[in-house]
């Protein structure tokens, strides 16, 4: 996976611009992050990761700011901190967020490998960066494709609840 570096304070209105909110996620995807990295929407490839500064996802509750990244195939976001509301939305739509205090050391375009359950990021030079632990039920949610997928599964297999 290839890293796209972003600054601190990337907000929901940059990820999912308000003017696109009445349209489909495809339209939002064309304008995702255009005010920060205009080439991103065209050049991003499935499996890439965003590596951002602190406070990623501040602003609105619009979950398109997270689901647009799932739609574009992003594998994860790596940042030292997130808006709490964005954090919940991301896992609910199946987007993995890794809280990595040393995210700033990662270079733009660097090839990374991520082990979410171990909380480890392996850098291009083989070095590793540690991430804060994530509650197991949230990792399960991402693995299963988000809350909607989980609810669908439960509605067809009405067994135990967490």
């Amino acid at each position, binding site marked *: 996976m290839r890293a796209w570096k972003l600054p601190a304070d990337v907000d929901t209105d940059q990820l999912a611009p308000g003017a696109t909110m009445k349209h489909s996620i495809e339209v939002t995807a064309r304008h995702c992050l255009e005010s920060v990295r205009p080439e991103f929407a065209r050049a991003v490839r499935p499996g890439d990761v965003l590596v951002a500064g602190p406070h990623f996802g501040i602003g609105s509750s619009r979950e398109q700011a997270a689901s647009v990244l799932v739609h574009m195939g992003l594998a994860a976001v790596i940042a030292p901190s997130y808006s709490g*509301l964005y954090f919940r939305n991301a896992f609910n739509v199946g987007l993995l967020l890794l809280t990595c205090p040393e995210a700033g050391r990662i270079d733009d375009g660097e090839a990374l490998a991520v082990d979410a359950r171990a909380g480890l990021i392996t850098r291009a030079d083989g070095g590793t960066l540690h991430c804060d632990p994530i509650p197991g039920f949230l990792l399960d949610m991402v693995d299963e494709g988000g809350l909607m997928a989980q609810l669908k599964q439960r509605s067809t297999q009405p067994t135990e609840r967490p």
Partner: protein
Amino acid sequence: MSSAATLAQKLVARAAGRDHVVSGEIVTCRVDLAMFHDSSGPRRLQPMLAELGAQLWDKNKVVLVIDHYVPEADDESRRIVHIARDWAAEQRLPHVYDSQGICHVVVPQHGHLRPGMFCVGGDSHSPTGGAFGAYMFGIGATEMLGVVTSGEIWLQVPETIFMQWNGRLADGVSAKDMMLAMLGRHGMNGGAYQAVEYCGDAVRALGMQERMTLANMSAELGAQAGLVAPDETTRAWLAAHGAPQIDTAPWHSDEHAPGVRYTFDAGTLAPQVALPHSPANVCGVDELAATRIDIAYIGACTGAKLSDLRAAARVLEGRRIASHVQLMVAPASVRDAAQAEAEGVMRTLLDAGATLLPSACGACAGYGSSIPEGSTVVSSTARNFKGRMGAATAQVYLGSPFTVAASAVRGAISDAREMLAGRAQTGTGEGLS
């Protein structure tokens, strides 16, 4: 373990069906009220509910407010609003407010929020409900689906950050200035998704709508919830809005409750302004005195409630806005607009040269109307992210309604205090707003 609990812990414990909760633990809470609007609500929920074959857990606990895409400006807006209206009719939702104003203001104005409740809203400014001593926070549409199908939501019990405001605000300085000062000091994630409780003499002295301004912008502070302990002011307001005889006694933080405490002096607070493009990029109004503006915007749940309209009118009474300035006023609710009309506040704004816009979210989030490219704007709204109001090249400054009105008159960012000198300080009560 100390038995002293914070207001936030008490609210969460009640919703979790527990005697007490410990900050940091994850609990499941029963939801007393789920609020959503036309943008985050039916258009997203209806297809997911249909796909699951699921039903709303309790229609009486659901409130739909159609406020983002009204009045409908184009076909896409019409489509979204139609989905909301059709779904509300099909579901026979008992609580629907269509084109009545902005959800965070309309919901309490119709008696839906009371101290002790645990509520979620499909909008980031949902912490506004904390002004009433309810635990209320914003969630996205998928999480709302989880709530409306189960009536429950998980929560990590928050720590509390006490923002204690001592002393008394000067005339022309308001809750918005208090919040901008807190943002300047703590930044946009200073709330760390914990609970913020606003307290102290200066907070207790605020009317309900000013308290709502504080709670509302808890979102900008990055807090999950922003609370004000309910008191006699809360009781009186609720009694006038369909929720009489409320018991507020249980809903306060105990003395020695755990938490971090920051203190602020209201008496020395000057009007604050946030510079482009962050609400935390804050300085005193005097540092910007020569900044010429094109547009003055009084709008949004944050900055166009009756108390905000009255503040602007006090500055604008007998004055005209500068000839190169456009002053736009989008009252936060139809009810607030009607009350402003009845007491002459609206007349004052219009006589000063204001243009009246519909009571809806409007240009605040660039959903409906937009501000012009290249313009310099001073706005009473909550966010000035680059491009948020629909124009990437606009320079948006945030200030209180006092500051916006004073700036409209002078044509440049201005301190309202000098323009209020000698004017009677009336209308601090909030009547039936």
